């Protein structure tokens, strides 16, 4: 078994309204920053032990499918690194 950290990033699908991001952008603009747009995302770092990177990735992917992301509104990415 090898120790890995799987990083799952969950973001809203493009086209789904993100009121928190809009509010954050407005606050940055009020502070005088110049920006075109802003998106936010949730990132989960999951430490786990697996036989290889592929099985670590598939376990993290299942976590995203079953809980971390809501497929109606979210897309997600999974990456795995040895720890």
């Amino acid at each position, binding site marked *: 078994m090898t120790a890995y950290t799987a990083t799952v990033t969950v973001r809203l699908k493009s086209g789904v309204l*993100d009121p928190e991001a809009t509010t954050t952008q407005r606050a940055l603009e009020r502070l005088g920053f110049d920006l075109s747009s802003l998106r936010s995302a949730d990132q989960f770092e999951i430490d786990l032990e697996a036989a290889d990177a592929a099985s670590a990735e598939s376990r993290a992917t299942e976590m995203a499918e079953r809980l971390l992301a809501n497929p109606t509104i979210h897309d997600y990415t999974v990456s795995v690194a040895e720890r």
Partner: protein
Amino acid sequence: MTVAIVRFGGSNCDRDAARALDDLGIENEIVWHEDGLPADTTGVMLPGGFSYGDYLRAGAMAARAPIMAEVKALAEDGVPVLGICNGAQMGCEASMTPGAFTTNESARFQCEHVHVRVENADTRWTAAYEEGQVLELPIAHGEGRFEITDDRLAELQAENRVLFRYATPDGEITAEANPNGSTDNVAGILGETENVAVLMPHPERVALADIGPTDGRGILAGFARATVSP
């Protein structure tokens, strides 16, 4: 018959629901989620509140609690299941109803009275009303914006599964009458079968004649009605 009102850590509308059902003469019991559903359960209410502190997404944790497998199994057997507010979020998170309830367009928690129009009066939950009737119901949510993919929305509409839409007091569907940016002003829907329904407004808060209007009473009375085909 006993309607099980499922209490999670953070539920806070369970007692209001029990009082409203008591007043309607509908036998009910508040059930702690870890205890599972009583054997004589003939209806399930998923009440409002902030289960699990709304961690991750409102309703996400409760939707995956073990008791929800029991709720789903009963729903498949035709037992009536009603999700209100946080319970509606749970229903969608548990895939008992389509779509998702997410952050209000305002990005704020909103607690106010709104109007909804009855879109389909041929369900047990809406049989007390006429199609097109306008109800005044309270909302109290930060994550009530209904999001759904275009094809699933088309399916909901084609199958007449939208129960309530946010409307003006005169029953017009307008952007101004939509408190949270919900897709197509949707406030409440049916699952795949007529016995499962969710809505964001709180019918249990307008159900007791002693304290005011009773617009929500007819929705809760759905527990005591026989199946009406959608």
